[in-house]
């Protein structure tokens, strides 16, 4: 068979698309994948903060990943998904254009992400790998948020959770 998913040196990533670009997140951080659902706007939050969702009673802040990456906003369609990820004990939802697959990448095939100069913030891309003809950018979710942003997300979660009770 074409892939052996049980070899120990292989790391597993969930890959997804934003436009034409493919990204990957280590699966141990992923809580679940859900279809796009109603997002409640929360005032006075950064523009990439889409709001919060109520997932089976848990209030989860949701980030528009396109906006966070400086891309254009896009209308949701049938492929739009929210990937729920745990970052520093905070559950955060990331809206993505479409989920692709769970991919095994040999750690030896992970390359260092190129630097685009100090004016471009690409610190959150921790490595790059090739899957078939696509280059996949592996994200370091911790670096996607500044420490104070994580605090903001946690506060949004707590404020809305207590209001909902």
């Amino acid at each position: 068979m074409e892939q052996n998913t049980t070899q120990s040196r292989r790391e597993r990533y969930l890959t997804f698309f934003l436009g034409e670009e493919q990204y990957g997140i280590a699966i141990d951080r992923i809580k679940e994948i859900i279809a796009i659902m109603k997002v409640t706007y929360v005032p006075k939050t950064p523009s990439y903060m889409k709001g919060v969702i109520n997932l089976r009673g848990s209030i989860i802040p949701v980030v528009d990943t396109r906006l966070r990456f400086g891309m254009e906003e896009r209308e949701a369609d049938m492929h739009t998904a929210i990937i729920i990820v745990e970052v520093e004990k905070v559950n955060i939802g990331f809206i993505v254009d479409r989920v692709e697959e769970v991919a095994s990448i040999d750690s030896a095939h992970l390359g260092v992400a190129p630097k685009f100069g100090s004016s471009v913030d690409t610190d959150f891309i921790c490595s790059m790998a090739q899957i078939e003809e696509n280059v996949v950018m592996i994200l370091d979710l911790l670096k996607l948020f500044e420490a104070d942003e994580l605090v903001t997300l946690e506060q949004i979660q707590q404020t809305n959770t207590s209001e909902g009770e």
Partner: protein
Amino acid sequence: MAKRVLIVDDSRAVIATAELALEELIGSGVIEFKSYLNPAELLGNLQSGAENFDLLISDVNMPEMNGLDLSRSIKSDERFKTKPIIILTTESSEELKMKGKEIGVTGWMVKPFNDEKLVKSLKMVLGV
């Protein structure tokens, strides 16, 4: 030897969700997991002998072929007659479930599914 689990679903998100739910069983080598987006391709591979399985998880509504028609075709083949098939679908009508029973599917799970329930059903069916 690892049990071979196949999933056929036209949604990549559903396949990824199932794969994440089964990650522990995949990682520990209890099962090997292979996915198909196209039921016709799966059926072709099964019929040609290029594919085999110990458990198949199938969606119902897919563009190329209905999951129940797929199950019927698979079950009519002597080689796969006794192999378990679990239906994983948004469909919950009793009429369809009855149809599934007649065809001989082993289980029926409604999406969105619970990870633990999927793992439990799979372990039970495979005896692992």
